[in-house]
Structure formats: structure tokens, C-alpha cells
């Protein structure tokens, strides 16, 4: 890149990448047929809930191909910037690329335009990346359906600024007020989430961090019980689900020590089962 061919990208990282000849889309053979009826594979469980301090977002660690377990330490909950997290379900290659582009896009906007990209701007950016990936999604090989959680710093101090957004394969985004879950294991816990949010002894949105952690661990355990593509807690290898919190002070990952304690509380009789 030299000063002569520098153009003003107005903070648009995709425009910058195109200018640098980075191939943004995977080329597909033209004769490939589009199978719109192919179900998008998304073997996993990711879940986000709004709790007292913001949003807690979690994912299991299993990666599968068909019925084979390929990897048991996959990270599906990715920090994008100081106040946002993306939880991915679907094709890992595309999902990681989307997360990486998203992270770099927000940074590029901030660095070049000298201000943070707005909340709405961040949501649109992710919509655009998912929409651009439609061809892959329709092939049944590259679909990605994420949950995007962030903390709105503009929210009044007294209010919970945590927000959860759910996307469809075409890139439309919807705000889920109290919870969201996606992936193959999600069908087993959606009803539970609704029940907890509406009728729970302590509603999800009033839970403190520990209560929310225990609830999430139990939800993932339930999903793993019925969905082969979702892993639970592997006590022998000490592999825990990934759990992150998004609050006014930023994104934090819960430590393994923290999770060990929460697990003891979540499943006091785990050894007996």
C-alpha cells in the first residue's frame, strides 16, 4: 500500500480489504446446484441470558462432523471487543472468519474514524457478513447462525444495558429481550428458558452472577443429555463449557476455578448419576 493509491474508506474495513485484494468470499463452482431445502447444520448449543449485571453467554465445547466427535475443546463464544461477544453455531470455518472480520472492522472504524461504531452500526455489520455468506448457507456447507451479545454503554446507569440479538441465515437481526439459544441442542432448552424467565423462583433477569452461572451449566447439561452434538462437563479431562459475561465494565471469562465451584453447586450429586 502506498500513499498514491490510498483512498478514503470512511472506516469501512470490508472496502479496505477489497482494495487490498483480499478474497472476501469463497468462490463456488458455477454449476453447483443450490439446495435450498438442505437444513443448515449447526451441531452445538450456545445460550445467552440477561442477568442482573448484563448478559451471560455460554457454549459447549464439542465440534462434530456427522456422528463423529472431532474436537472437545472448541471455543464457540468469542470476544469481539471490550463490550461485545459473538456465540457461534454452524460452519466453524465461516463462523471464525466472520468473528475475525467483525473484530477487525470495529477496531478499524474506531481507529480511522476516531469514534466507536454505534450499536446499530455493529449489528448491521454482522447482518452484512451473514447475508454475504448466503450462497454458502444455501449449499448446506457454510451456514452460520450466531447470537450477538453486547452491553449498551448509553443505557442509564440504573438500567441493565445488556442486549442479546439473534440472527437468521439471511442476516435479519432480532432483539431477544431476556434469552436466546441456538444450535442443535437449543430445542431441548428453549422451553426451559421461557419457563425460568417467566415463572422461575428468581427470574433470569434478577439472578446474580453465581445463580446465572449455575442455571446456564444446568441448561447445557440438559442439552447434552438429549443432543449428541453437545458436550457436557468432562470431569476427567476438566473441560468446562465456555462462559463469558458482558457487563458495563467489559467482557470477562469465568475461570475454571469459578466453574468448578459452580459445578459443585449445580450438580451436588453428579457422582451418583
Amino acid at each position, binding site marked *: 500500500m502506498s*500513499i498514491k493509491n490510498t483512498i478514503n474508506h470512511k472506516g469501512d*474495513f470490508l472496502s*479496505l*480489504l477489497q482494495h*487490498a485484494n*483480499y478474497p472476501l468470499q469463497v468462490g463456488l463452482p458455477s454449476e453447483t446446484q443450490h439446495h435450498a431445502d438442505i437444513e443448515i447444520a449447526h451441531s452445538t448449543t450456545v445460550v445467552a441470558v440477561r442477568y442482573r449485571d448484563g448478559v451471560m453467554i455460554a457454549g459447549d465445547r464439542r465440534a462434530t462432523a456427522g456422528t463423529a466427535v472431532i474436537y472437545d475443546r472448541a471455543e464457540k463464544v468469542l470476544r469481539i471487543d*471490550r463490550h461485545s461477544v459473538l456465540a457461534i453455531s454452524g460452519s466453524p470455518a465461516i463462523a471464525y472468519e466472520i468473528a475475525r472480520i467483525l473484530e477487525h472492522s470495529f477496531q478499524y472504524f474506531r*481507529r480511522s474514524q*476516531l469514534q466507536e461504531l454505534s450499536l446499530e452500526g455493529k449489528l448491521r455489520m454482522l447482518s452484512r457478513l451473514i447475508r454475504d455468506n448466503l450462497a454458502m448457507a444455501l449449499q448446506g456447507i457454510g451456514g452460520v447462525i450466531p447470537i450477538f451479545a453486547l452491553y449498551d454503554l448509553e443505557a442509564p446507569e440504573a438500567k441493565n444495558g445488556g442486549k442479546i440479538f439473534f440472527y437468521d441465515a439471511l442476516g435479519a437481526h432480532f432483539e431477544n429481550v431476556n434469552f436466546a439459544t441456538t444450535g442443535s441442542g437449543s430445542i431441548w432448552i428453549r422451553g426451559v428458558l421461557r419457563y425460568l424467565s417467566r415463572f422461575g423462583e428468581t427470574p433470569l433477569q434478577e439472578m446474580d452472577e453465581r445463580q446465572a452461572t449455575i442455571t446456564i451449566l444446568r441448561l447445557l447439561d440438559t442439552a447434552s443429555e438429549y443432543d449428541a452434538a453437545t458436550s457436557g462437563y468432562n470431569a476427567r479431562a476438566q473441560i468446562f463449557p465456555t462462559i463469558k459475561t458482558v457487563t458495563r465494565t467489559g467482557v470477562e471469562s469465568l475461570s475454571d476455578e469459578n466453574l468448578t465451584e459452580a459445578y459443585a453447586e449445580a450438580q451436588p450429586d453428579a457422582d451418583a448419576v
Partner: protein
Amino acid sequence: MRDEPYRWIEAIQDRRDYIEDQLRVGSPVVGLTYNEGMVLLTIGRGQRKIFEVHDRIALSAIGHPADIERLRMLVTDTASVQGFQNATEDVNLHRLTNFVLAHTFKQAFESIVGEAYIIKMLLAELGGTSEQNRFTGINYDGNVRTDAAFSVIGGTEAIETRMQNYLAAASEDADRTLAAALQLGLEAWAIGKELSSREAEDMESEDTEIDTEQMHEIINLAKEDGEIEAGVLETTQSGTSKFRLLETQEIETALP
């Protein structure tokens, strides 16, 4: 004109005089390390002068705002593309200054029919350890200078030398806090500011010592119609991006 070497040299000299004349009144920038990172600071009037380039690299400059903006974009774009195509760890200050900026500066300066950049740049890079922290200054003619503990850019070379000398004398304590770094940086800034308002010949004379009291007067005066601007690369910052602009209130409470 290149066929006539004397005219070319003369043209370059004219260009140098012209650029230095424009830079002379620029508000200096001071860069210092402290116990938790590095700080760049200046006192400006509205126009922002301290910027984030990449995860561990910050930039500041004096000169014409349009030139600063153009070169800032060049280095930010280059770093962003490199950081994405390879990995963010592959972006480093040495490559950005030597392979991207220095020759751009030199080329513009020496192509006497084209426009010249009126600029002096100071970049900071937070290393993996404090010994690896680096400041790099780039002059309008493409000359690069690298320093470890502190660095400055000011209106003229003489001003910079005086500021550097002050910092060198006060710089035994490399483990200073951010508050101490801000204080020391502002004092050096005051020296630079005062000297740039004096005539060139005054500066050479012996009785130009500026005492601490005078420095504080200059700082207070500058604060009346300007604002202290400071950006830090801090090791304590979570995540990969280490840059942060300090809030006005943070600066105020840090200063006595």
C-alpha cells in the same frame, strides 16, 4: 532542474526552510514510559493529535492537519490489513516506519515539484516487556530516530534537544507512575512551548534557563485556552488493544 545540481540543492534547501518555518510554532509532543506502559501527551487547541494505530502502536504528529490525516490513514490502513491478513502480532513499528512511512516522507520531500508534507511524527510501540518499548520519530525528510525511555517532537531540532536534555536529567526513575510521567512530560512540553515562541537567536544564548515555576506558569496559561491531551498504551488493559485516550478528569486528578 535535476540536470543542474546546484539549483536542485538550492530548491531542497528552500523547501527545508519553508517546512521548518511552518513547523516552528507547532505544539510539541512528549512520549514517556511509565511503570504500566507508555504515554504520549501534548496541549492542543481542539485538533486531536494523539491516535491509535494498532493494538500496541500509537501515533502523534505536529504539522499541517491535512498532511497528518493523510499519513495517519496510510499507516492505519497498512497496519489494519497486515494485522488481518497475517496476525496482529505481525504488525510492528519497525516495519511500518522503515517499509511504509520513511520512504513516503523522503519521496515527497525530495520531489521538489510535488507537494511537501509538513509533518513530524512520533510513534510509540508497547513491547512484550518494558525493555522492548520503543519510540520512533520520523522527520519530514524521512529520517528515522528510535528511543527507548522517552522521546519528543518539537518545532525545531534545537527545541527538541533542550526538551530531551531536560527529560534525560530527570529520567533516572524509569519506574515512575503515570501521574509522575504526566507531570514530567508537561514540564518538558512547557520548555518546548516557551522556546518555540522565542526568536531563533534568543534560543542559542546562555541565559534561557526555564525554572520549574516558569514551567508551571506556561502550563497553566496553555490550559486556559487549550486542553491537555494524553494517550496511553497500557499493559494492564485487558484484550489485545492496549491504547486508550485519558479522560480529562483522570489527567486533572493525576496532576498536583
